[in-house]
C-alpha cells in the first residue's frame, strides 16, 4: 500500500492511499467536529461541520469526503472555521425543538456536546418552533422529530447494514422529515426488522428507547458490525 504525505495544521502527517482528510486527522489525534459522519457508514457530506481549508482551493472542503492527496496543505481549525461551525450548530438548535432540560439524551447528545465544545451558550437565531409529531407506535422505541437533525444516520444504517431500507427522507427544505415506509406509523412498518440499529446511531434524542434514559453511544458500533460481517472479526 502506498503512503501519502500531507500537512495538517502545520504538521507533516502520513496517510494510507484513499484515506479521507478526516481519517488522517483522526489517526493523528487532530480533532475535526462532525455530526452526519459515522464510522462504518457511507459519507453524507451534509452537516458541513467538518469543512476544512485546503491551500490552493478557494472553496472549503468537507474532510469526510475529500481524499488526502500528496502534498496537500490542510487547516482544520481557524477563526473563520470556528465561526462557521458555531453558526451551523446555532442554526440546528433554532431549527426544531431542542429542549435539553427535558430530553432523554441530555448529557448523552452529540449536538449538545458540539455546543458545549464551542462554548455556545445561547442561540441568536429565531427559534422556529415547528409543530412536529412524535411516533410512539413501535413497541420498543420512539421517534421524536422535534430532536432530529436530519443527519440520516438511521436511514443509512438501515439501508447499508441491516438492508431493510425502512427509513428514508420525505419532503424537502425545512419540511424534510425522516419517515418509515409510506410515512406510516413505525409500529405498522412491514419492512422494519426491529433490529434497533437506527436507535443506536442516532446522535441526539430523536430515536430513543421507551422507558430508558439515553446513555452515550458506542461510536464504533457500525464498524464493529462491518468487521464482523465482512471479515469475521468479532473483537470489540
Amino acid at each position, binding site marked *: 500500500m502506498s503512503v501519502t504525505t500531507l500537512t495538517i495544521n502545520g504538521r507533516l502527517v502520513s496517510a494510507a492511499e484513499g484515506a479521507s482528510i478526516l481519517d488522517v486527522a483522526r489517526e493523528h489525534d487532530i480533532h475535526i467536529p462532525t455530526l452526519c459522519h459515522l464510522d462504518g457508514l457511507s459519507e453524507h457530506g451534509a452537516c458541513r461541520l467538518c469543512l476544512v481549508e485546503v491551500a490552493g482551493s478557494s472553496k*472549503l472542503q468537507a474532510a469526510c469526503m475529500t481524499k488526502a492527496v500528496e502534498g496537500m496543505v490542510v487547516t482544520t481549525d481557524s477563526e473563520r472555521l470556528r465561526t462557521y461551525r458555531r*453558526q451551523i450548530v446555532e*442554526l440546528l438548535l433554532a431549527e426544531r425543538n431542542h429542549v435539553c432540560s427535558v430530553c432523554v439524551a441530555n448529557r448523552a447528545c452529540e449536538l449538545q456536546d458540539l455546543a458545549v465544545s464551542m462554548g455556545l451558550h445561547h442561540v*441568536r*437565531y429565531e427559534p422556529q418552533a415547528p409543530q412536529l409529531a412524535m411516533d410512539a407506535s413501535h413497541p420498543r422505541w420512539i421517534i421524536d422529530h422535534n430532536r432530529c437533525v*436530519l443527519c440520516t444516520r438511521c436511514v443509512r444504517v438501515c439501508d447499508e447494514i441491516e438492508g431493510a431500507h425502512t427509513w428514508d427522507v420525505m419532503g*424537502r427544505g*425545512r419540511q*424534510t422529515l425522516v419517515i418509515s415506509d409510506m410515512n406510516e406509523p413505525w409500529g405498522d412498518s412491514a419492512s422494519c426488522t426491529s433490529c434497533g440499529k437506527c436507535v443506536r446511531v442516532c446522535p441526539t434524542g430523536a430515536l430513543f428507547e421507551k422507558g430508558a434514559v439515553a446513555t452515550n453511544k458506542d461510536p464504533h458500533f457500525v464498524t464493529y458490525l462491518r468487521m464482523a460481517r465482512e471479515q469475521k472479526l468479532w473483537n470489540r
Partner: protein
Amino acid sequence: MIVDDIAAVRDREHAARAAQKARIAVCSAAGCLSTGGSAVKDALTAAVAEQGAGTDVRVLGTGCLGLCHAGPLVRVDAQDAAPAMFEHVTPALAVAIVSGVVGGALPAEQRCDLTQPFFTRQHRIVTSDAGVVDAERIEDYLAANGYAALEKVLTEMRPEEVVREISASGLRGRGGAGYPTGLKWSTVAKAQGPGKFVVCNADEGDPGAFMDRSVLEGDPHRVLEGMAIAAFAVGAEQGYIYVRGEYPLAITRLKTAIRQAERMQLLGHRILDTQFNFRIDIRIGAGAFVCGEETALISSIEGKRGTPRPRPPFPAEAGLWGRPTLINNVETYANIAPIILAGGSRFATLGTEHSKGTKVFALAGRIVNTGLVEVPMGIPLREIIYDIGGGIPDGRTFKAAQTGGPSGGCIPAAHLDLPVDYEALAGIGSIMGSGGLIVMDETSCMVDVARYFMEFCRDESCGKCIPCRAGTVQMHEILLKMTRGTADERDLGLLEQLAELVTRTSLCGLGQTAANPVMSTLHHFREEYMAHIRDKVCPAGVCPMHAEDRP
C-alpha cells in the same frame, strides 16, 4: 439515410420554397399561444385553403419572434418584398393578411416596425431560425442548413478536432456559471471508459427566464444536433434531455423532433451511415429548482430525490451512474452547430475578451418591450434596456435590473453602462445567469425583492445540508422582520454573517449563491435597508411595515 438523401430533402424543400409566393410564420411559442396564437394559425390555414392558395402560400408555426407582449405575432415573407410583421393579430386580421398576400397588398394596420432597434440591434445566432423554421417540421430545419454541422463533423472531422473548434470559439456555458465549454468537453473526452453520457440541462428554473423554453419550442432540432455533435466529440452513445415538467409544449416538440430525426437516421443507430450511434431520451423534471444543479440533476435522472452531492468528483469524471458525463444547457448546445459551420475563430470575433458570441435574454418586468432578445456579448446594459427594450413604461424611472434569478443580483442605475459579460456582471455582485433580465422601477422595494428571492431559495432548498436548509430560513425570517418594521441593527449584522456562512459552507450551487440577491441589494441599496431598520419606513411603499401579533 445517407448524406445524399439528406441533400435531396434540402433540394426539394428549396424548390418548393422558390415556387411559393409567400411564407406566413405564426409565432408558436408559449407566449403567443396564450394570447390566441393557435386560433390565428388555424384562421390563416383555413383562409389559405379557402382562397385556393395552398401551393403559393405556406403557413408555418415557428419559434419565438421576440416581442412577446405584442402577441400573437405573424411574420410574412413574400417573394421580392421586404418581410413584414403584424402584432396583436386576431383571426379576422389573419384572413385579411392572407387576402393581402394573395392580392399583393398587405393590410396596413397593426404593422410591427421591423426597423425599430428592438429588431435591428439584435444579433441572432441561437435564435436565427425563428420565423424561418417550422418547429414541427424537420424538412424546414434541414432547408435552413440544419444537421449540416453534424454531417460535417461525422464526415470530415475527428473528435479532437471538434473539441478544438469549440475551445477556439471561446464558448462558455450559458447556464449561468460560464465554465468554458471546450474545457468541459475535453475533460469528458479524455475520461476513460465506455458508457459516457451527454446530458442537456433544460431545467430552466430561474424565475424570469424563458430563453431555453423558446429554443426548445421553436427549434428543437438545433439542440438535438448540438448534443449529437457533443456526443461524437466526447465519445458518448446515450444522451438525456432533462426538461422541466412545466414546459409541456417543449416536451411534445422535442418528442416529435427526436422521432423525426431517428426516422432520417440523424439520431439513433449508424447515424448518416457512419459508425456513430447516439440515442437521446427525454427525462421530465417534476418541479424542483435544485435540479438545475448538475449533481442534483444527475440524481433526478437516476430516479432519485434531486439532492446534490459534493464535487469533486465532477460529473465530467463521475456523473450519471458513475460514468463520465457531459452536461450543458440548452443555449450552449444551440450554439454548437453555428460554431462548427462558421468555425470557432469566426465565432470568437464576436463579444468581449473573455465572453464570446451572443447571449439570449428574456426581458421582463417594468419594461416596454417584454420578450426575447439575442445580443452580442459586451453590449451595454443601457442599450438592452432603453434601445432594445424601449425603456421604462408609464413615465417611471429605472431602479434596478435583476439578472441571474435567485443566484444573481440587482444592478443599480449607476452601472447601466456596464458591458454585459460574465466578468463584468460578477464584478458588481451579480451573475450572467441563464439570461433572465427583469427590470424594476421605483415601485419595487429592494428589501422586499431580497425577501422574495430568499423565500424562493428557502422553499427550493433540498434540505440536505444544514447551512442552506436552516440558513435560508433564518435569513428569510430576518428579511421578513425588516419588511414588517420590527428588525433592528443586530438583525442586519446577523443577516450579513448568515449570508457569508451560507455562501461559503453550503453543499451546492443553490446554497452557495442563495445569498447573492441579499448581498447585492445590501451593497447597492443599503440606504433602503437602513430606512426599513432605523426609520421603519419602506421608501417604495411596498412593505407593510407593521408587525403581526408579537409581544
